[in-house]
């Protein structure tokens, strides 16, 4: 087990009318990529700013490499931050931006220049050292912002949705680049985002945050395949959510009946009691389609649907079905073999899903049939 670079213990931050961070405890292993994933307003920015030192926690403690950060100002912490809008200094050149932190440590100018050039070399921007910051492209600015922080060799690098301002294509590219940079430098990254794809692709571990608390903390695979709460199941990856009542079942499966009379079987959850309102989740890629109901796998049960619309998106193509009885909408991922690529709107088709891969949780408060 790696030693811990960051340990948070029962950290609390209250604002006038709500609790932004509600007694959070977690740790981040040295050299790992840790993400905090949550919708806007969940408290993730507040948490990050507490680690950076811009906000003091009301309660609890944050320790970096075993040292408590209570009362330590941001400019004295071994952490650096990559800001959402990057916050590069427009009055300075690229090189001066990277040298800024070194200059604050009192390094002599030749040494500063040497280190900043070496760092820019590693991010592939050595030629831009004397350029103005606003002469760079979005991706280059991103790399300058990271170089400016990493040149100080921080224990932790905090990243506040740094890809949010980029367009989609560049964002995909920068995701890969970030992961490679983190692997190359071995610095511990703490990354916050509301984009589940960024969190899943980049991280070793992800915490899903909602209303100031972690709903679940685990590997990206855990979150995707073994969500522990309805929130995580709904937030991470695409999912079909079905609200109903637990009407029966055995040790392994649970029967859920919706108010409009559709009955499905999902994997049993010990937290669910008989007769209780539940949220069931079936991922689009779990659903199996067949033109002939007899071709469906054994023991899955079967349902009939009508094609509502076709969503062609290359390998991510999907189809929206309406369950024939209840007219309920179900999203189904099309197999990548090209099978069913000839589906037509209005066509009737049988579908089913593996009970073991359909999750079920007690319904969150505020959910009504």
């Amino acid at each position, binding site marked *: 087990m790696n030693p811990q670079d960051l340990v948070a213990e029962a950290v609390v931050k209250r604002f006038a009318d709500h609790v932004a961070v509600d007694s959070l405890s977690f740790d981040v292993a040295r050299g790992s990529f840790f993400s905090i994933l949550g919708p806007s307003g969940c408290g993730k920015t507040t948490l990050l700013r507490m680690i950076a030192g811009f906000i003091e926690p009301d309660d609890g403690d944050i320790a970096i490499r075993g040292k408590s950060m209570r009362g330590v100002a*941001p400019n004295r912490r071994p952490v650096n931050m990559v800001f959402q809008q990057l*916050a590069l*200094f427009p009055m300075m050149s690229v090189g001066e931006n990277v040298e800024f*932190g070194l200059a604050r440590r009192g390094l002599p100018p030749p040494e500063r220049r040497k280190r900043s050039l070496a760092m820019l070399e590693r991010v592939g921007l050595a030629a831009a050292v004397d350029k103005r910051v606003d002469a760079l492209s979005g991706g280059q600015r991103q790399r300058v912002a990271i170089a400016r922080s990493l040149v100080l060799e921080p224990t932790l690098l905090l990243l506040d949705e740094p890809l949010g301002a980029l367009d989609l294509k560049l964002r995909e590219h920068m995701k890969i680049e970030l992961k490679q940079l983190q692997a190359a430098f071995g610095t511990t990254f703490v990354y916050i985002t509301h984009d589940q794809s960024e969190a899943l692709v980049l991280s070793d571990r992800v915490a899903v945050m909602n209303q100031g608390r972690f709903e679940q903390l685990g590997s990206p695979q855990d979150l995707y395949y073994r969500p522990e709460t309805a929130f995580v199941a709904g937030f991470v990856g695409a999912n079909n959510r079905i609200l109903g009542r637990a009407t029966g079942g055995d040790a392994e499966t649970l029967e859920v009946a919706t108010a409009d009379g559709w009955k499905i079987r999902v994997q049993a959850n010990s937290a669910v009691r008989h007769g209780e309102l539940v949220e069931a989740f079936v991922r689009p890629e779990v659903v199996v389609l067949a033109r002939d109901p007899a071709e469906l796998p054994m023991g899955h049960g079967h349902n009939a649907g009508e094609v509502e619309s076709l969503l062609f998106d290359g390998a991510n193509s999907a189809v929206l079905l309406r369950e024939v009885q209840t007219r309920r909408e179900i999203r189904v991922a099309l197999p990548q073999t090209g099978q069913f690529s000839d589906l037509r709107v209005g066509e009737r088709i049988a579908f089913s899903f593996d009970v073991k891969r359909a999750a079920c949780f007690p319904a969150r408060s505020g959910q009504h049939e």
Partner: protein
Amino acid sequence: MSLALLLAPPVLWLGLLIILPHVDLAVLSFRERVGVRQYVASLAQYRTFFAEPLYWHVFVRTAVMSVIATLLTLMFAFPIAWIIAKLLRGRASSLLFSVCLIPFWVSETVRTLGWMILLRESGVLPALLVKLGITAEPVELLYHDATILVGLVYTSLLFMLIPLISSLESLDNALIEAAYDLGANGLTVLRTIVIPHAAPGITAGCIVVFMLTLGNYLTPTLLGGKNSQWFTEQIYTQFITRFNWEQGAAFGFLLLVLSTLIVVVGLRLSGQRFGEVMQRT
């Protein structure tokens, strides 16, 4: 045609009120009276200025005092602008700005007379000093250089505040946080981030305040009395008391040259460009 109409007011304004009088003043300053209604072209007016120590002594004094007043105004205005632009939000910010603005609803004469009521020997402040036991007898606080500076800074504050506030408001707070995060302390943030960003605003404010101060007549005269020795007073004396319009015109031109020179030197020293400064504020 419509363009000509549109441009007519500013052109008339510039032509009739600024260019024409200055051309006339230039002509006046380069002639000498040799007899009743007899004039010849000469440099006599400018020669007198350099020959008479009193004149250029007052000239240099006015320039130095104006520079000091400008720097003092900057020092006072900067923290106020910072509070208004960065620390306060919404109503509190506009309230503080109004507090700075309200004195300017009153004419400069009345404001300056207000200072006289406060500072004269039989005034409010000397009486207070006696009451508090700081001075045994009422002291005369008027007619000192410091008094003139107080009046000038007070009069100029708003003209420094406005460009400073607008340039500080445009400074992204994330830049300050980023600098802090990279290990800077308050002073280095100010030196490396805030001042370079606000430089055009600072320069614009300094130019405006310097011009206003150099050309101010009322405040130095009322608060400094006979000791004020402000160059605009010399110009007034030549035109009105002595009725020596030629000499007065020459003085006027010398003041114009001086202010232009100091502004150019100031821009050079701060590495700013005039066009850029005027555009960004």
